[in-house]
């Protein structure tokens, strides 16, 4: 089988080469090809550290084709013909064949099997360098998008020559938006590269209060300081101020280390060095007259080392008194390292102003994150607020209804490739599927257990693990893609700090819609009236002609259906796996219990509290998200101890229903 395949492949390639041979008359002496050949080795090596000369040579060659070559190269379209030893550009036709063209005049050379060619794949570092080299061609390009590309290249990877280039096109640019960007970029490059301090300071001050990351990125390096030590604080302009040792900025160890490196103090000896010195000086079975066997304590080792030092066998180590003396004599201070004092001070002043604004904006961003997390929790919990909060049914399979909704979305996308349309279909379908599942579960299981809540918990838990495993059996264990439509891609950007993705906004809106839906259904419809009646007193309701069975079934279905829609939303923002439901179930119950059972506003408050708390703790301890979850749960446990009925406790008759 495979022999046959290989034979066919070989046959095809022979035919191809035979067919292509007459066309492959590439001009090896064209100037551009010669230039490439000259730097062939480093181009083939394709490393950012060594590629510089090749890119410079191409860019500076003055050849008309240079721009095209750089662009092709950047787009990974440059190939090397191993046999002829020439560079070409090519497009891939299929897995094994390419169509090659000559760089010099763009003539087609024919179709080839790709075995004889090596594709040059510049990594993104090299692509950045090529982009920077292309700037000079692109800045004057009549096409605005090419000019924009040049600006992006400068933003990413600026060098000194770009400043002049920008200044040259600053006046001629007619596109107002590009002109604005050029202006900003020119000021930033001025700060970085200009020679004249006054010019730099003016540029720095023009950014007062600007929140852009790029501004901070250019200012921060200017105010970098280095530590120094002297007997008295020098009166130089670049000295920022004195630093106390033993603080967070400068630990006592580091401070002493600084003195040692500046040869102002004698080094101390570490335990490891001490041990090595002792071992080196073992004489039969004793060190400086002290038996080796007794050297199993720190004091014994200190004594032995001191004895060795007295004998002159080792360098004496700094004593505690010497260390204390050194700290008494010297002061530590910081100096600006990267810029002249005037520029550094100006940068510091502007930065201080910016930092305050940044802190404010970060708080706002954190608030948005918290709001978004709260809306996700609310969305996950709202179905539960109906089944648990209103009906008092513990549904441990609630998470699996969320999962079913998400998988419904996935299946719909398999059939309807258009993402917008598929979401439009998926949402009602997810509702229908989980509504049906909820009704079935209520009819078959839950209604037999209305007076035994603990057993409902167990039975629904059984359903939950069965459904989870069923999903695994059907959809496999890999995470499945559920892709948001294009208009939900990206994020709403207020500035470089405050932004929120559209998908989260959509979830927030959805949560609000559900809240409204819940309120309308419960307070404004016949169904809601009947639900409330049945909840408060089923027998009385039944005697008024309401069918409690039917109402229970519909309510449970409604709660489950909402969980299904929540599943689609959660799947869009996170992932679709068989275990996604169990991630939310405990949190959802917490949300409902904390908020106060039986009250949708309580659930809303609960979700807000849980979300805000979690983000707050994360902010306090940014390197460990797990800790945030742990402490949040602990907090909730404590909270429930002191407010067992939740934030909004039902009062009066409703509470006893």
């Amino acid at each position: 089988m495979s022999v046959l395949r290989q034979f066919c492949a070989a046959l095809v390639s022979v035919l191809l080469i035979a067919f292509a041979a007459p066309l492959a008359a590439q001009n090896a002496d064209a100037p551009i090809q010669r230039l490439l050949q000259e730097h062939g080795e480093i181009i083939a090596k394709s490393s950012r550290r060594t590629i510089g000369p090749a890119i410079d040579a191409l860019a500076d060659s003055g050849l008309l084709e240079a721009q095209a070559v750089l662009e092709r190269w950047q787009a990974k379209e440059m190939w090397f013909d191993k046999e002829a030893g020439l560079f070409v550009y090519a497009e891939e036709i299929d897995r094994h064949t390419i169509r090659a063209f000559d760089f010099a005049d763009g003539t087609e050379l024919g179709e080839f099997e790709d075995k004889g060619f090596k594709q040059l794949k510049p990594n993104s570092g090299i692509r950045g360098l090529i982009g920077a080299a292309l700037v000079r061609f692109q800045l004057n390009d009549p096409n605005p998008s090419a000019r924009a590309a040049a600006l992006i290249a400068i933003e990413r990877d600026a060098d000194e020559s770009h400043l002049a280039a920008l200044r040259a096109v600053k006046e001629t640019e007619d596109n107002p938006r590009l002109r604005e960007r050029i202006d900003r970029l020119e000021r930033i490059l001025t700060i970085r590269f200009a020679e004249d301090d006054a010019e730099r300071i003016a540029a720095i001050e023009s950014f007062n209060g600007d929140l852009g990351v790029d501004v901070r990125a250019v200012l921060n390096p200017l105010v970098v300081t280095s530590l120094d030590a002297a007997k008295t604080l020098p009166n130089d302009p670049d000295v920022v101020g004195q630093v106390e040792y033993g603080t967070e900025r400068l630990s006592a160890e580091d401070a002493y280390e600084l003195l040692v490196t500046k040869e102002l103090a004698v080094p101390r000896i570490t335990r490891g060095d001490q041990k090595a010195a002792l071992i080196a000086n073992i004489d039969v079975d004793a060190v400086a007259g002290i038996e080796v066997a007794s050297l199993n304590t720190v004091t014994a080792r200190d004594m032995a080392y001191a004895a060795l030092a007295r004998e002159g066998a080792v360098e004496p180590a700094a004593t505690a008194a010497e260390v204390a003396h050194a700290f008494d004599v010297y002061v530590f201070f910081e100096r600006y390292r990267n810029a002249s004092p005037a520029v550094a001070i100006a940068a510091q002043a502007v930065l201080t102003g910016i930092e305050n604004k940044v802190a404010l904006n970060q708080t706002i961003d954190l608030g948005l994150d918290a709001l978004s997390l709260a809306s996700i929790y609310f969305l996950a919990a709202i179905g539960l607020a109906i089944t648990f909060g209103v009906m008092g049914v513990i549904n441990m399979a609630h998470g699996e209804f969320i999962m079913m909704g998400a998988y419904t979305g996935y299946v719909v996308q398999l059939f309807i490739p258009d993402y917008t349309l598929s979401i439009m279909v998926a949402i009602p379908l997810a509702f229908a599927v989980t509504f049906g599942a909820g009704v079935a579960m209520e009819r078959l299981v839950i209604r037999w257990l209305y007076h035994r809540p603990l057993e409902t918990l167990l039975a629904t838990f059984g359903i939950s693990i069965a459904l989870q495993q069923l999903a695994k059996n059907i959809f496999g264990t890999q995470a499945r893609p559920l892709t948001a439509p294009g208009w939900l891609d990206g994020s709403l950007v207020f500035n470089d700090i405050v932004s929120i993705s559209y998908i989260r906004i959509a979830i927030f809106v959805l949560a609000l819609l559900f809240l409204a839906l819940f309120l309308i259904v419960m307070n404004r419809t016949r169904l809601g009236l009947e639900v409330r009646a049945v909840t408060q007193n089923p027998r009385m309701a039944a005697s008024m002609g309401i069918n409690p069975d039917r109402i229970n079934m519909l309510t449970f279905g409604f709660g489950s259906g909402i969980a299904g829609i929540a599943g689609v939303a959660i799947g869009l923002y996170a992932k679709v796996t068989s275990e996604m439901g169990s991630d939310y179930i405990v949190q959802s119950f917490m949300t409902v219990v904390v908020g106060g059972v039986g009250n949708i506003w309580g659930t809303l408050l609960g979700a807000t509290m849980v979300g805000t708390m979690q983000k707050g703790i994360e902010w306090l301890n940014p390197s460990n998200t797990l800790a945030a979850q742990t402490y949040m749960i602990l907090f909730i446990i404590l909270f429930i101890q002191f407010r067992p009925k939740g934030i909004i406790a039902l009062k009066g008759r409703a509470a006893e229903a």
Partner: protein
Amino acid sequence: MTNVALDTAPARQPTFLLISNPSVLIFLACLAIFTLGVTVLAEGFGIGVISTSFVKTLGKTLCLCLVALAMDLVWGYCGILSLGHMAFFGIGGYAIGMWLMYARTEIIVVQSLSAAPLPPTTQEISDGIAAQIFGVVGASEFPPIWAVAHSLPLQLAAVVLVPGLLALVFGWLAFRSRVTGVYLSILTQAMTLALSLYLFQNDSGLRGNNGLSGLQNLPGLGDVPQSTVSIWFFWASALALGLGYLLCVWVVSGKFGSVIRAIRDDESRVRFLGYPVEAYKLFIFTITAVIAGIAGALYYPQAGIINPAEIAPIASIYLAVWVAIGGRGRLYGAVIGAAFVSLLSTYFTGGQAPDINLGFYTIQWVNWWTVLLGLSFVVVTLFAPKGLGGLFDFIASKRSPSRHGADLGPDAGALREKEAET
């Protein structure tokens, strides 16, 4: 059968406990015969029909039976559906695991340092142990939580004290504010989740997700084959189960037992009668936590590794399910349930169960066992609330007329769990 017989003929003196409870004698006799049988058949001291890995499975199953017993006491008798008892079980395992790891590593470190030119200082030994234990999780210092890990008696005390104290504090807080029914279940589940998330963190000082491993190797007994060690632990587990059973029987008999069953059936009424309901519940909650801790301390040296996943909320739910399937409110029911379900799980996930070919689809038990297990909870809760233990009633009632009071039947007045209806 056990407890109910006591209701009608209360045993005033403990000496009559066994005599008035033939089922206790039967249970202990079964346990003894089982232990003896396994010993004879196992590799360690017997003829080697039962493999060491299966002896370990059986030993672990006995520990699970013990914790199920505790669960039955707290749920079946006292009506508190705790979803936190596997957390106590895990804490017991961690407590003993710390000593096992420390002592085992200490031997290795001392041995390797003895070859060094200078005799090691205590600090160096301690650093060496820390590097060995925490090297894999990228740390090299002992966290404060390991302060007494070097001492077996202190860690053994921790097996009992840590779960006991945690249960005492948690129970006191919860019962004091009258958190009952499903709320309490959810709260205990949250406690379990918090504990497992805490242990998942590396910063907890218990090696995070990796947990403590190599626990089957007893320090200083490296030369004893696992076939022997497994039998030792099997005996210890059987002994613990026997003692635990007696303790539970003693607790649920007599007036004390009647009060806690009354609390299960109608908490408010018992409170109005003047009983300190909270104190009773706290006692049961704490003592079962201690039993769970001991069971865990016996379980994990047989399992060989403990990590936070063992404490995840789902484990505690499984525990409740075992008890439900076995038949709650009867102690032997819990034992049967735990043994039955966990052994069946071992069988089906082991890949030994034959696949069923339906022609159009092949049922692989590995994939479908969980589905079956899940659905069986539903079936048991709906149709057989007495669980497997109910079978015994069925057989017993054939022989003698029913002599006991209300059961845990679906609509019987005895189990209204009224507090949860709100």
